[in-house]
């Protein structure tokens, strides 16, 4: 029997690669450092280009007869996938086609096969939480740092005996034929860009943080509220290219922030009554079919200011006074807003540099570059090493999925 394929990262790209390989009869070890799969896409609320939301699971739960979601059967019940959450690859040795990957698997406090998400443990202790109603594996997560008496009670009372507080982390080595890197991206926390006050002023947030405020499953039930006092937001300002296209941070264009900024702007203006949005930009890059978001935004009355923010001051009432330079009018404009949203750069996730180095891959501004930059196979990162999704650089979901499928087809061909 041939060795399995190792897929690092269980975001949309890694999940697609793993499920399709598994469905084609290839054993797959799917590793993610987080306790649940889905990666960044779990936090997006509605997603372009279809504006679908990620609550298919929550939606199907209320419909009688549908208890299992597609992903549960595709990932957890698929015998060819060995899913390892809370896990990281610590070392890779061996040779192409026969890699030895050392995995460090965090303590499995909750047996996801047993947990029925009854919520009892969450009532007993803050150490338990449900990351999202449609999370996969379908189970609560446990944070040992918050351990207390309630947690011990929960362990005893759990109706399915799914909790094991004494669980230990483990190490194992797997031999794999191919490695698929699907480690995605991280949204930069722009703390070091002083002029925007991120990290100091509570009503200054990033786009990913805004997505979580807008999320109907979030704390405010989807109401657009200020982090400082949960007061209703009436005026929003967004700033594009924060840390992207900037030689001091990342020289590249993060490619999708214009699209999702306008996706958010449209949701706010069209679905959250009476809220005004101003977007301060250098260029609006809503590439190919996404130009629609820009057009809708303009018609909806989103205000666009080409230029930069020159001054930002936090007022006592939680609002922000902002002066922006409008380079089209050659005038300074003064605004007062409740929420200031930064379209922050999408950077390589922690550990990327080490992974690239250990496998001798090419770095493309810190992301995983193609083995041969002149070839059309951007998903081929090395000998028996593939890359897909945002691990190649900022990418949208459809593109990530397409690349994952390309990887699967290349692995299938190589095994013929």
């Amino acid at each position: 029997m041939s060795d399995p394929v190792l897929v690092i990262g269980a975001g949309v790209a890694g999940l697609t690669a793993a499920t399709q390989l598994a469905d084609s009869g290839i054993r797959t070890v799917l590793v993610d450092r987080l306790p649940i799969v889905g990666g960044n896409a779990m936090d997006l609320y509605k997603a372009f280009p279809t504006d679908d939301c990620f609550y298919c699971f929550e939606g199907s739960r209320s419909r009688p007869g549908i208890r299992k979601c597609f992903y549960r059967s595709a990932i957890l019940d698929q015998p060819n996938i060995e899913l390892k959450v809370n896990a990281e690859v610590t070392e890779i040795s061996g040779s192409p086609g026969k890699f030895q990957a050392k995995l460090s698997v965090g303590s499995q406090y909750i047996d996801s096969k047993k947990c029925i998400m009854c919520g009892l443990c969450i009532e007993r202790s803050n150490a338990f939480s449900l990351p999202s109603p449609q999370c996969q594996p379908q189970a609560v997560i446990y944070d040992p740092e918050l351990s207390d008496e309630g947690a011990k009670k929960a362990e005893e009372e759990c109706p399915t005996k799914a909790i094991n507080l004494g669980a230990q982390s483990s190490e194992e080595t797997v031999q794999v034929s191919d490695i698929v890197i699907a480690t995605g991206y991280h949204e930069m926390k722009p703390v070091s860009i002083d002029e925007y006050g991120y990290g100091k002023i509570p009503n200054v947030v990033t786009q990913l943080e805004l997505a979580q405020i807008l999320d109907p499953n979030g704390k405010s039930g989807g109401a657009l509220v200020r982090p400082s006092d949960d007061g209703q937001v009436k005026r929003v300002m967004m700033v594009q290219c924060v840390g992207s296209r900037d030689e001091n941070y990342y020289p590249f264009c993060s490619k999708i922030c214009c699209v999702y900024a306008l996706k958010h702007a449209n949701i706010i203006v069209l679905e959250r009554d009476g809220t005004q949005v101003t977007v301060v930009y250098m260029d609006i890059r809503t590439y190919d079919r996404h130009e629609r978001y820009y057009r809708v935004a303009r018609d909806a009355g989103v205000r666009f200011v080409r230029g930069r923010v020159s001054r930002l001051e936090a007022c006592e009432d939680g609002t922000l006074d902002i002066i922006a330079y409008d380079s089209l009018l050659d005038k300074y404009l003064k605004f007062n807003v409740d929420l200031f949203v930064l379209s922050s750069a999408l950077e390589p996730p922690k550990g990327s540099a080490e992974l690239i180095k250990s496998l001798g891959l090419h770095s493309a501004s810190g992301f995983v570059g193609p083995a041969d930059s002149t070839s059309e196979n951007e998903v081929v990162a090395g000998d028996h090493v593939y890359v897909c999704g945002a691990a190649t650089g900022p990418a949208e979901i459809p593109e990530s999925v397409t690349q994952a499928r390309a990887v699967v087809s290349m692995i299938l061909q190589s095994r013929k």
Partner: protein
Amino acid sequence: MTETEEKADPPAVMIEPIDISKLDPDFREGIRSMPNGEELSACFACSTCTAACPIANTWKYKPHQLIRMILLGMREEVLSSEEIWLCLTCFECQERCPQNVRVTDIFFDCKNLAAEESMIPDSIVGLAKELLDKGQLYVVTADWEREDMDLEPEVPGLSTEEFKAILKGTRTGRIVGGDE
């Protein structure tokens, strides 16, 4: 006077930023509801209109800036600008706009709004007065050119009286009316 005594002059006026909350948020929708105004919001400030315009190089506010000012709600500035009246109505801008913004027509809308509020430059009021007084802007006079071409000194059968009467009942009449 020695060199050290020379100092850079402080700026003559400190320019205050434009306070967005003081602008007129209804102006944009007002223009959009006027004839041929609905595409206004499609403008993405590419400045094709300004590039196309044969005379904007002498203007303080270029066509794309005027459109931006309308979108921002700078009602006062737009309606009192001389540019909307200097426009040749050649339609070059409108012809080329990639978003089908009817720039020239929108400037007509602005002129109509300005006229409603009596914000018309004196030179234009002067022309209207001339039209009302004489029934024509360019009065034909007996001169050597007509003579050279064997034409009668007066234009035969030209009567401007009726035209003047009609004009009096129009907005042109009302605009000039106050001065009389």
